[in-house]
């Protein structure tokens, strides 16, 4: 009798231990877990809202088979940012971002292009979207601009998107280097802080006028809902029926040609948390950019694809409407998006 009681106790304890082990295993296996890489990415996403700094930045871009180098100087506060481009193609351009607006002053044209943010998603929604579509993985440590950094890879869950590698300052979580790779994993650009100085504050005057030499300008793009866009443009603005997995709508804007010829287009913006997919709808091909006729564009081809290391463009003409799709996706996907637009 005593013996059978002991046996029963033994079996109960054994069953409880097995249940406990199964629960632990199940939690590890099925519950979403927040890894150290995820925590680092969350901190990095919020770092620019906490830190003020001045930095020198070196950028290398692979474009149409050649490497382009750009140097710039950055002034950053939690509320505003100013970047002065010192060398390379954007030399002389000053970009100021504040209050959801981006002012881009080009000293060559002496004009400012104003762009108003149309982002429908908050930062936390974008971060959730990013983590849903990508995996963050720690990839070691390295020094950038004399600071110890955690290297994190952001890899798409679907192969159809480019990946990124971030060098994140271990103590402040500011991103000190970003490498972008294309769909096949080849590096297509890299921006690295060569020097950074954290400061307590910066003069507000830095973020008011781009450089005092640029004339003010109307916004070249501004948020507008679909109905208002259709009314203004004189055709029905319709979103594509097909959007690649992971991408969600991020807003509609009215885009005016920066050359001030009066040509306007609808810009439908999608995001997967890391990459932007743009769908432009415009009345016809003959906008101001096509004054010099491009014979290859006038042959009414069903679809035309242009691609280089930095992205792909698909153009399709449907009746009176031309649809342009721009993004970092395989050509076939861009064409599918373009063709699915009613």
């Amino acid at each position, binding site marked *: 009798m005593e013996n059978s009681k002991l046996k029963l106790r033994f079996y109960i304890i054994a069953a409880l231990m097995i249940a406990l082990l199964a629960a632990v295993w199940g939690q590890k296996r099925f519950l979403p877990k927040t890894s150290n890489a995820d925590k680092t990415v969350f901190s990095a996403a919020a770092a620019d809202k906490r830190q003020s700094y001045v930095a020198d930045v070196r950028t290398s871009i692979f474009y149409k088979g050649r490497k382009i180098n750009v140097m710039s100087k950055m002034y950053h506060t939690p509320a505003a940012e100013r970047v002065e481009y010192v060398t390379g193609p954007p030399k002389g351009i000053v970009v100021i971002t504040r209050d959801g607006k981006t002012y881009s002053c080009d000293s060559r044209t002496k004009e400012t292009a104003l762009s108003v943010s149309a982002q429908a998603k908050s930062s936390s929604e*974008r971060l959730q979207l990013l983590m849903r579509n990508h995996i963050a993985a720690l990839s070691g440590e390295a020094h950038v601009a004399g600071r110890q950094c955690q290297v994190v890879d952001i890899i798409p869950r679907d192969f159809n998107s480019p990946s990124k590698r971030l060098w994140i300052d271990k103590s402040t979580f500011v991103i000190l280097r970003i490498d972008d790779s294309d769909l096949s994993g080849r590096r297509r650009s890299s*921006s690295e802080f060569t020097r950074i100085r954290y400061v307590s504050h910066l003069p507000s005057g830095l973020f008011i006028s781009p450089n005092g030499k640029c004339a003010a300008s109307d916004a070249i793009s501004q948020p507008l809902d679909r109905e208002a866009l259709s009314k203004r443009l004189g055709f029905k603005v319709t979103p594509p029926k097909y959007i690649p997995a992971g991408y969600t709508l991020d807003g509609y804007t009215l885009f005016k040609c920066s050359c001030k010829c009066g040509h306007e287009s609808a810009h439908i913006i999608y995001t997967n948390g890391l990459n932007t997919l743009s769908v432009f709808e415009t009345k016809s091909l003959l906008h101001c950019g096509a004054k010099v006729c491009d014979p290859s564009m006038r042959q009414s081809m069903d679809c035309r694809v242009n*691609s280089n290391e930095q992205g792909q463009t698909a153009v399709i003409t449907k009746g009176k409407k031309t649809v342009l799709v721009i993004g970092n996706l395989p050509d076939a996907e861009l064409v599918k998006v373009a063709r699915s637009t009613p």
Partner: protein
Amino acid sequence: MAKVTDCHKTKAMLADYAEGNLGWLAVRGIRAHLSGCDACLSELRALDATTRLVADLGEREPPVGLWNGVYNRITSPESSRDQMAVAPRPWLASLRVRAIVTGLIIALTIGGFAISQFLTPRRSTGPDTITAEYIEEHSMRARGELFADRFTLTSIAAIAETERQEHGKL
């Protein structure tokens, strides 16, 4: 660079891939191959274009009374006489039908190829001055992404603008 053997395997499965008849593992393999192989991608596009063309033709209902007409002709006495008249030379009729069918197949193949060539998106890597302003705007919008490389995106916008201006001078 895609392997030739991979191309053979991929091309053999492209029709099933386009129809969505493959398992996820095979789909993943083919997609990975397509992302680095222009030849197979072109083949897929041609296949898509042809399929779409056929789908666009739609299904047509036969005219009302067609079946009755055919049935009456088969069962009528004149039909029996016609059959008797043709009977001595069945090889000639067979030859004619074969020639017509062969001709139709050749015409459809050539037509299908020509249309698929027309519908296949043309690929270019040169300066795309027509779309430059849109690339510029796309780049400026993409600056708003969480981990956007704003320096590269601004540079791309500047390059697009320069290309557009240079093209305008020509």
